[in-house]
C-alpha cells in the first residue's frame, strides 16, 4: 500500500461534504509536497509524512465538530449540503415524484414553493457542473431558503401536505 493510498484512506475520516469539495485538491497538494520532500532527504520526508498523517487524524474530529455545531446555512457558504441534494443515480423524476403526485391536491403556494426548490437545485447542479462555485453557493443558499419556506407552508397547512 503506497503513501497516497494511506492518505486517501485517512481522508475517509472526514465528513462527506468536506471530502466532496476538498479531497481532490488535498490529494494533489499532498502528492506534490510529497515529491518535493522526498527530494530533500529521508529525514525531511519522514518528518513530512508524520506531520501530514497526524494532521489528518487530528483535523478529522475537528471537522466533524464543526459540521455538527455550524448552522447548515452558514456551512453552505463553503460546502454543499449533501443531505439536500438529490442522490447520485436517482432520476429527478423519481426524486420529485411524491411532490408531483401531491401537486393536484396541494394549494398553489405550496406548488410554487416546490417549483422554486426544484429550480434552485437544478441551477446549483448546473453551476457545480460548470465549476461556477460562486453561483453554486448562491443557489445553495437560495435552495435552503426555498426549502425552509416550503417546510413552513406545509406546517401551516397541516401534516397531510
Amino acid at each position: 500500500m503506497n503513501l497516497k493510498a494511506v492518505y486517501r484512506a485517512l481522508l475517509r475520516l472526514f465528513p462527506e461534504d468536506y471530502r466532496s469539495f476538498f479531497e481532490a485538491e488535498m490529494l494533489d497538494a499532498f502528492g506534490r509536497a510529497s515529491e518535493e520532500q522526498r527530494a530533500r532527504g529521508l529525514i525531511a520526508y519522514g518528518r513530512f509524512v508524520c506531520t501530514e498523517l497526524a494532521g489528518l487524524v487530528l483535523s478529522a474530529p475537528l471537522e466533524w465538530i464543526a459540521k455538527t455545531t455550524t448552522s447548515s446555512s452558514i456551512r453552505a457558504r463553503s460546502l454543499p449540503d449533501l443531505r439536500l441534494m438529490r442522490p447520485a443515480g436517482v432520476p429527478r423524476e423519481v426524486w420529485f415524484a411524491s411532490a408531483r403526485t401531491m401537486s393536484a391536491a396541494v394549494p398553489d403556494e405550496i406548488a410554487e414553493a416546490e417549483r422554486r426548490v426544484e429550480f434552485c437545485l437544478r441551477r446549483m447542479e448546473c453551476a457545480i457542473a460548470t465549476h461556477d462555485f460562486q453561483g453554486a453557493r448562491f443557489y445553495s443558499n437560495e435552495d435552503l431558503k426555498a426549502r425552509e419556506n416550503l417546510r413552513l407552508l406545509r406546517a401551516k397547512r397541516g401534516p397531510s401536505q
Partner: protein
Amino acid sequence: MRHVEERQELGGAKPLTEPVLLILASLAAGPCHGYALMKDIEGLSNGRVRVSTGTLYGALRRLLEDQWIERFDQQDTSREKQAYRLTMAGRRQLECEVERMKQLTRAASARLRTKEA
C-alpha cells in the same frame, strides 16, 4: 484554555491564529491554489511554519465560511487545482491584524528603549 481576556478592538476583529494570518498574507499578493499556499507560507515564515494539508484545508474551509476568501475560477482551473483569493472582508481583517501587530510592536519597542535608557 487561554487565561487572557482579549478586548475586541480595531473594528471588533479578533487576533488571528498564525496559519490564518499567513494564509491571508499569502493571498494578499494574489490568487493561489492549495499547494502554492503551502509553499508560500513556508517562504513567508522563513521555513519556520509548514502547514499540513489537513490544517490548511481546515483553515480554508473556515475562511470560506467567514467569507474572508472565495474560490476563484482561473482559465486552467481543474478540480485538483482550485484557486482562492481574498475578499474585501478578508483584506480588511488582514489590515486590522497588521495594525494590531504594529501597535503591539511599537509599545514593546518603547518599553525596551525605556529600560535601556
